[in-house]
């Protein structure tokens, strides 16, 4: 809250220092329809492929560059749509109206969610269906944020990250390379998703809301993710071991003598890698059971590990 107030106060001052090109105050009307051919009485136009591509690349490369607390991805969406607006709307008034429509709040998953929405709305703008565009954006940004964030943040990224990080911990440069290539692959995926939306137009809503295929993919990825995590908890945290030893009196053949036993070897006989599992379980309980935030859990884990190291347990 406080930063919003502060932001309001500083706004006017900063705005004047921003070097903005104001020479293009009037948009030349005669460029209207340059990238499009009119057909039909309602003014629906067939967009030139170059206009569609320009819009797609703008969306792909810059969607969130102006992300802000107030309207989030709205300005990025408008910027991406501008080539289409220029091609479809002929009068200055129509363009202003279209621009203002796209300046309303918009936020969704940028890589899985937004490309199909954007593709569909490009197709709909070409049919001059402004109202449909607005309701489609509002209707789909929520569901696609949910689906997109789940696929990206809970399944794809963690699986890649765990594999890449374990390679990196073993000293292999392959780790960051795998991460790098996976990031590129995820970005490239935005192209077919945009095309899908553009082809489907208004029908994209059905694809999302029925979601049979999507839920199957999510199911499958969750299964894979679980197995990978199960294997990676012990492998990545293998260094979490106790060096503690204790002396034990053993009686053998009537003779008693003491021998040193490593606590870790005793633990390993019960369940191997029990300490890594215990720490994950503790962190899980702190967040699920005690409802602590991730940052507090991080601090508690760090202090605990530090203290355990001081007393010689870790």
């Amino acid at each position: 809250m406080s930063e919003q107030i502060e932001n309001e106060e500083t706004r006017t001052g900063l705005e004047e220092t921003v070097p903005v090109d104001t020479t293009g105050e009037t948009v030349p009307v005669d460029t209207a329809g340059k990238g499009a051919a009119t057909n039909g009485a309602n003014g629906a136009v067939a967009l030139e492929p170059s206009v569609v591509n320009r819009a797609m690349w703008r969306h792909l490369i810059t969607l969130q560059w102006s992300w802000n607390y107030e309207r989030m991805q709205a300005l990025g969406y408008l910027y991406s749509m501008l080539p289409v607006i220029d091609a479809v709307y002929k009068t200055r008034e129509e363009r202003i109206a279209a621009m203002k429509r796209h300046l309303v709040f918009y936020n969704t998953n940028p890589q899985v969610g937004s490309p199909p929405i954007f593709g569909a709305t490009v197709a709909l703008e070409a049919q001059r269906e402004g109202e449909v565009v607005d309701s489609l954006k509002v209707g789909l940004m929520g569901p696609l944020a949910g689906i997109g964030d789940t696929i990206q943040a809970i399944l794809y990224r963690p699986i890649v990250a765990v594999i890449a990080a374990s390679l990196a911990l073993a000293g292999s440069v392959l780790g960051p390379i795998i991460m790098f290539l996976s990031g590129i692959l995820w970005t490239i995926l935005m192209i077919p998703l945009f095309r899908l939306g553009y082809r489907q137009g208004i029908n994209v809503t059905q694809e999302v809301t029925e979601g049979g295929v999507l839920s199957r993919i999510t199911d499958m990825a969750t299964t894979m993710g679980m197995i990978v995590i199960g294997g990676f908890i012990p492998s990545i945290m293998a260094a979490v071991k106790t060096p503690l030893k204790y002396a034990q009196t053993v009686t053998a053949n009537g003779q008693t003598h003491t021998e040193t036993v490593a606590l870790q070897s005793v633990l390993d006989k019960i369940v191997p890698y029990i300490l890594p599992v215990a720490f994950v379980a503790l962190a899980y309980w702190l967040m699920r059971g005690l409802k602590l935030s991730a940052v507090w859990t991080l601090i508690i884990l760090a202090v605990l590990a530090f203290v355990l190291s001081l007393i010689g347990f870790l």
Partner: protein
Amino acid sequence: MGGYSVGIALLLAVWAYVGIVLQLGPGLWWTEALISGFVTGVIVGNIPLGLTIGATLTLLSLGLWTYGGATIPDFQTGAIVGTAIGALAGGVGPGLAVAIPTALLMTQMDVLGRAVTTIFIHGADRYAEDGNERGVVAMHLLGQLPWGLSRFIPVFLAIWLGSGPIQSVIKSSPQWFFNGMTAVGHVLPALGFALLLTMLPLRRYWPYLLIGFVAFAYLNMPIIGIAILAVAVGFLMNSLQTRRGEVNV
């Protein structure tokens, strides 16, 4: 003892700027701690350290995501500053001792960057009202400045001015402190795994967790083997479900 040159500080600051802006744009993942730590390792000439610090931070961020524009610890900046200073101050323990607090403190800069950008949407409102498309375009493209600078400036200052003093503080710290930080580094991936598990339907899928655990802990299967096993089981369960569906219908 000395710190880094202005050139290195600038280079790392530019790397941080480009990383965050491209994360907003195409989303190339250059902000991932593993990538930003590795690149920093290349720049400061200590690749193994960059790999270790980057991988540790990536693992503890496993379940973290900016849901709806939430602010999370900035492990990109943490990895850059931690790797650069760790390379001077003697390794993973000191590096993590710098990286983790940096990542937590940087959340304030993230909030600031996200808030200041609001200026540009109001500018865009005005230009749109006038039908000035070039103004709208400029507002959008300039929106990257608060985002990029909120990383550029802290990284530059920390590396250029900070590395000397931070390094001497670290050098005068006792050995038990670094042992402690190394232990912290080993334990913290637990946070990433736990976070991830809180978001997955554990109640329904826990058996798969055990399959993975058994494969590694008892069968000593290498990680790639476990990944292949996971793909096989995933598709197997999918086709079993499909078949069951057909029988039921």
